């Protein structure tokens, strides 16, 4: 179990490597990028984008995204926050999901 935590910590600390990849994913552009690519912003796209205001948009801390160091800190924080929320969700789910253990012993 201890090994698992060490591996998890290493993976989390390495996440900023993902920032090094240039460009955004195909089909995940922002409104501005779309505009420069096709010359207009599709009306439905404009209407439905930003349906949700993210806490840490694009895994970064708002206005703390000026350089690689800041982005890296945002990325690592995002990984920690994301994993934390997932643990909370599953803690709540575990109250309802799964059978109680068979009465062994």
């Amino acid at each position, binding site marked *: 179990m201890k090994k*698992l935590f060490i591996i*998890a910590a290493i*993976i*989390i600390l*390495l*996440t900023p*490597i*993902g*920032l090094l*990849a*240039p*460009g*955004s*994913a*195909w*089909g*995940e552009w922002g*409104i501005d990028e*779309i505009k420069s*690519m*096709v010359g*207009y912003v*599709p*009306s*439905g*796209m*404009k*209407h*439905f*984008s*930003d*349906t*949700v*205001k*993210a*806490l*840490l*948009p*694009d*895994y970064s801390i708002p206005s703390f995204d000026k350089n690689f160091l800041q982005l890296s800190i945002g*990325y690592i924080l*995002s*990984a920690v*926050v*994301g*994993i934390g*929320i*997932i*643990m909370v*969700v*599953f*803690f709540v*789910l*575990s109250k309802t*999901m*799964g*059978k*109680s*253990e*068979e009465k062994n012993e």
Partner: protein
Amino acid sequence: MHIPDGYLSPETCAVMGTAMVPVLAVATKKVNETFDKKDIPIMAIGSAFAFTIMMFNVPVPGGTTAHAVGATLLAIALGPWGASISLTIALLIQSLFFGDGGILALGANSFNMAFLAPFVGYGIYVLSQKLKINKVISSAVGAYIGINAAALAAAIELGLQPILFHAADGRALYFPYGLNQSIPAMMLAHLTVAGLVEAGITGLVVYYLMRVGEDNLLYRLSYRLRGEAK
């Protein structure tokens, strides 16, 4: 592969969301029947793993990026139904808190990455095992095909938008590129790079766990899920 909001029409989002309802309903039933309460934390670890692995963007030809999902690895460890729930929750958290993938598009994203990817990957894995191919190769091949199935589905969902939904002047209302552009772009990214990353990670984890004699960790749940003794 996380489709943002505004890219798919509300109709498409509704169809994809509706498609995920029975999947999650059956998944919940299967998990409730097969898993003990003490197994649920393993689903949480799987979900956290997938969440983190998706943050590792890799550069792909054409100057864009892609990422692994971990879907087949989760399906091998948790069974495809358990993986489906774990991946859906990872995608939900990504969309709600990090703006990665839309909330309206959650049905589509879940369908691709939390249903197609683990089920196709797992299907290939089980089939390869029946053909007596070793576990590492089976899992890697399953992972490669699983993530590519998801990428193809995402490409089709996106590429259908300008055909189905456009204004009177021909301008797209949502995603502007058709199938002739979305399919080659997505498949190039995933067949060449992201698929190999997914296969590599999956194969390595399976290899490592077998090597250290911990493969029971990987198969404990899925054996039970398939009704095999061990």
